[in-house]
Structures are given as C-alpha cells and as structure tokens.
C-alpha cells in the first residue's frame, strides 16, 4: 500500500502547488483563503467559541479575487483551510488584439498571449486609452489557482 501512495505522489506537478494548508484559526483579515474552489481575499473574520454549535468556528466573509463575488464559509477553527498561492508578476504591454487578447513581453523576451482584457471597467478603460495614446504600459498580472487576470497598470513612459 505504501508503494502505491509513493507512486501517486510522484505524479503530482513538479512545480509549486496551488494552495497550502493553514489552520482556520490563524487566517486573518486581508489574508487569502480558498472557498468553494475560488481564491478569495478575507474581508471579515469572526470566531464563535466552542458551545452548543459544537467546535469553535471561524466565520469568513471573503471576496473572490477574480470576479469580486462575496463568498462565505464557516470552518471549525482547528481544521485546516486551503490558502491559495497568489503571485503578482509585471509584464510590459505590447499589443491588444481585436478579439480582446493581450500580448505581453515576458522577462526572457518571449511573448505571453493567453490573457484577456480585464473585466473591471476602470482598468479596461485605462489600458485601452493608454495603449491608444501610445504610452509605455506595464501591467501587473495576479495569478492564483491556475487563473490569471490583470489587476493593475503602470505608466512607465517618459514624463
């Protein structure tokens, strides 16, 4: 049986896993948590002590970092929750295609073309306008749980 387990482990992704476990009682406001498979940022935590409802519980209110939906969860404070690895990377904006895809310049000189324009209206307007005016733009791409999205924009052109 142990051979099988070992075999199973080696099939996992060679790279970093998407989440890591953390005890629910240690997750604070502004931290990250996975709720129903979505990476979320915690906006509210309240704990209720052990009582008639059973084990002490943490009540999380969190916002999905990609689609801004509000999600809730109640977890016994001694249980482990999944916390997503959230990475931010900067890329230079090269092009915006007609069907809404973005072309970005990566560190090693190749292009990254699989990202769409962000859905957030302000950000979308900033990118489109900035690009149209020919500005040098650097976008910050947030990635977590295998999903990516542009979350910020910087103008690095000459003043």
């Amino acid at each position, binding site marked *: 049986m142990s051979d099988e387990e070992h075999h199973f482990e080696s099939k996992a992704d060679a790279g970093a896993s998407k989440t890591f476990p953390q005890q629910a009682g240690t997750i604070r406001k502004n931290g990250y948590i996975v709720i129903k498979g979505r990476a979320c940022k915690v906006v509210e935590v309240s704990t209720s002590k052990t009582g*008639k*409802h059973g084990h002490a519980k943490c009540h999380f209110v969190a916002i999905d970092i990609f689609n801004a939906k509000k999600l809730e969860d109640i977890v016994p404070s001694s249980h482990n929750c999944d916390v997503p690895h959230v990475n931010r990377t900067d890329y230079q904006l090269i092009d915006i295609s007609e069907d809404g895809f973005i072309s970005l310049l990566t560190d090693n000189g190749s292009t990254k073309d699989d990202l769409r324009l962000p859905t957030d209206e302000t950000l979308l307007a900033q990118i489109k306008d900035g690009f149209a005016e020919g500005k040098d733009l650097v976008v910050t791409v947030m990635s977590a749980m295998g999903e990516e999205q542009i979350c910020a924009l910087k103008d690095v052109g000459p003043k």
Partner: protein
Amino acid sequence: MCQEEMEGGGGGGGSGGEQRDQETLESVRSALFKTSISLDEKRFRKIAGYDFNQGLDLLGLLGSFSSTGFQASNLGDAIEVVNEMIDWRLSHEAPTEDCGEEERNTAYRESVEVLVTTAGGIEEDIIKCLAPTYKGDFSLPGAHLRSNGLNRIGNLLVPNDNYCKFEDWIMPILDQMLLEQTTENVVWTPSKVIARLGKEINDENSYLYWAYKNGVSVYCPALTDGSLGDMLYCHSVRHPGLHIDIVQDIRAMNGEAVHVGLRKTGIIILGGGLPKHHICNANMFRNGADYAVYINTAQEFDGSDSGAQPDEAISWGKIRGSAKTIKVHCDATLAFPLLVAATFARKFHKIANIEP
C-alpha cells in the same frame, strides 16, 4: 375554641348582661358550627395517606395518591385517566381480521402512537448516547461555568465537548441526507429527519431509536431551535441546499387526528410551549381529544398557553367538553415516572389494578 372557656367568660354582669351574652354566644356558635351537608363518599373520597406500616410497596404508594390530597390527588386522577385511555384502547379496539402483526401485539396497542417534542428533546436524547450529562446545581455561577466549557440546564451540566461529539456525529449524516435529496428526490421533513437520526444512533438507550423501530412518529416543527439548528446552519454554509419541509409534517400531524375516525384520542402533555399547543391544536381537527393529562408548573394568570388549564382548550374545541381531563401542577421529573409506573409499566409487567 373551648366551650367551657366561653361559658366562663359570660359569668360577670347582672342577669340582663347574661341574657345578651347568651344570644351573642348562640349566633357565634351557629355561624361557626354551621350544619354541614353530609358528603357522599362515592363522590367525595376520604383523605388518607399511605400507611408505611404496609411496607414499601410502590404500587400501593401510587394508589394512595388519590386520597392524599393536593397535587398527589391530581396525580392520582391523572393515573386513573391514563389507565382508562389504555383500557379503552384494549377493549374497544379488538384486532380485526385484516390488521397487521404489530396491531395484534398487545404491547404495541398499549403504546403511544404520536410524540411531539422540542429540538432539545431530540438532540439531548442523541447526545446522551455519545457522552453523559452531569448533575450540577442551580447556583453554579455562569461566567465560571462558561470559562470551563460547561453549559448549565437547571441543575444539570452538559460539557461543550458533548456538542462537539454531536457535531462530529451528525455532519456526515446531514451530508448523506443532502445527497439523498438531490439524487433520490427524498423530501425531508422534521419527522423524517428525526426517524433517520433514530436509525443512525442505533442505541437502545435512545427513545428515538425505539420510536424509529416501532414506527412511532415524532414531530418537531421547531427542529432548528436547538443545537440541531446550529448544525443545520453550519452545514448549510458549506453544503447549501438541504430543505426540510414543515408543511408536509403539519399535514401528517393533523392527519393523525383527522384519520382517527371512530377511535378516541388521549393526550399526555409534559410541560408547555410548542409541544403542548401543537398536540392540542391537532386534536381540534377531530373536535377535541377525549382524554387529557397535563403535567406542568405553568400558571394561567399571565394568559400563556403553557399555563392554560384543560378548560381553556375546551373553549377552542381542542379538548371535548365531555373529556376526562386533569392538570397536575408538578415538575415532570417527579410526576411522570410515577405516572408511568402506575400505568404503562404496570400494564407491561402485567400487574393487576392498583385501585382498592
């Protein structure tokens, strides 16, 4: 007041004063010693307590309650009413040819058919199979108990840990119920949930286990008002979608009364609150119960339904005007075991009637 003293007091003045004193005496005497009607001993029982010279005889002691007075007499009357309920069932409901095996079994026919209780009445029964409740004291200070994780119910203590065990036990069952709801189209109602819990606990110390085994319906419209509700709440946040239909249960509950037909209904109500009203209300659908026994400590002066006497229920049609009713003003922990001993348990152990 001693007659001699009165006469001695009249001695002092002249003959006119003596005459007046005699008249006063006569009127006082006729007021104090007003002739009483004689009481028919068939209607008015003579008061006499239990004679412990007879030894320690449980049924004899219970039998003596009727003539002991106050609430003991009320309990004695309650015992009579319940025995009448059971006897009516056995004599008037002779098994018909086409009735089932279980109907024929006398034990079944003597038993209770419908139970109504609170959420606490359900969960505490289950929890006691997982971990014990302890005897404490009414005066234990609340803050101190809280810091030690002990919950007080009167003079009983329930450790928090008991509810943790209950949570660990019930969550997988709720998951399973949700699964059955979505895949097998099971419509859950409080009584179905309770039957399932009785099945799952599978412990002879649980009355819910026996209710499940014997097909006795247990209704609890306010199933969420207890630790069960907390569990349902927490469960639904993680796995939403479980529905519990109270409409179907009120159909079933009132149906129990409606489909009684030519039989009779008898109600035994311990305490007040929701179960008391729910039971009485259901009986309204057959124009009132035929027997009613209340055992509670509530008073009627505040207009509460809990404290309402059987006569108030008669005004609603929840109990028949012709019904045999009695209210025992007593805590059920005292009165109910005694009531059961003198009625159901006595019948079960096949002991002859305790009445002299």
